[in-house]
């Protein structure tokens, strides 16, 4: 072994990391290790709905129901307005028809009276 190699052995001696190194490793292990669920637990997990998913489903359902109810009432209002307009048209037609009938009667009445005067 030459002097350079001896110097290298001297320079590259093992040294310790900072204090608390083991603790840092163990805490990293603790945060990154998730205990493996048992068979029954895994089967039950498939049947249950996670809370966040339940909230999302609830909110979506509430939104859809609100939109549906609003649409239904709007449709009902439009139908009522349509019915009212139809009634008004029918009434107007009925009035117009009555007036026409009266006018026809008046015309016919005059026609019948004129020849008797001559």
């Amino acid at each position, binding site marked *: 072994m030459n002097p350079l190699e001896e110097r290298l052995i001297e320079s590259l001696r093992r040294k310790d990391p900072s204090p608390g190194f*083991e603790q840092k490793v*163990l805490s990293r292990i603790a945060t990154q290790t998730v205990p493996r669920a048992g068979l029954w637990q895994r089967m039950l997990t498939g049947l249950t709905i996670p809370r966040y998913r339940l909230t999302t489903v609830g909110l979506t359902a509430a939104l859809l129901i609100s939109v549906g109810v609003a649409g239904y009432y709007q449709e009902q209002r439009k139908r009522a307005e349509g019915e009212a307009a139809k009634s008004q048209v029918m009434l107007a037609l009925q009035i117009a028809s009555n007036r026409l009938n009266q006018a026809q009667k008046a015309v016919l009445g005059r026609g019948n009276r004129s020849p008797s005067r001559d």
Partner: protein
Amino acid sequence: MDLGEETLTKAVRGDQAAFAAIVRHHKSMVYSIAYHFLHESWQAEELAQDVFLQLFQNLKKIESSAHLTFWLRRVTSHRCIDWNRRQSLRPRVSLEELPEPAAPEVRSDPLLARRLRQLVSNLPEKSRLIIALRYQEDLQLAEIAEILDIPLNTVKSHLQRSLAKLEEQLTSTEKLPV
């Protein structure tokens, strides 16, 4: 000195205290390989933590305490190379690379050792690991070849070239007889 087989068996069975004992026993080896390769303590410490985390995940594959030591040296070496390649993608300035403040030169061993470590850190990555494994871990060249997955002759040639380069740099910069 190797750790007892009993400690390893306990750690494999999930005994946290036994695993902590393994970390305590091997931390200086893992940390020092990383430190002599990366030349920065915070990086070496992070890398060493990663190695022990990987060990924890692979404890069942460890057959004996001798295998454990081999496994740790091998994983640390390969992680060093990976780390270096990742780091080389981003620009960085290491405190260790900054010029030394002007001060009268004191020819003492700590300074020389530091200078030598700095010269080692400038070697190519494979050579750096070979030097660390040879002189820090006192491994035979065949063992180094096995750890690094390279032919024995490659280890020999890397080592010879590295020693020649270190000797030349040390002589020219420090003007010390080597």
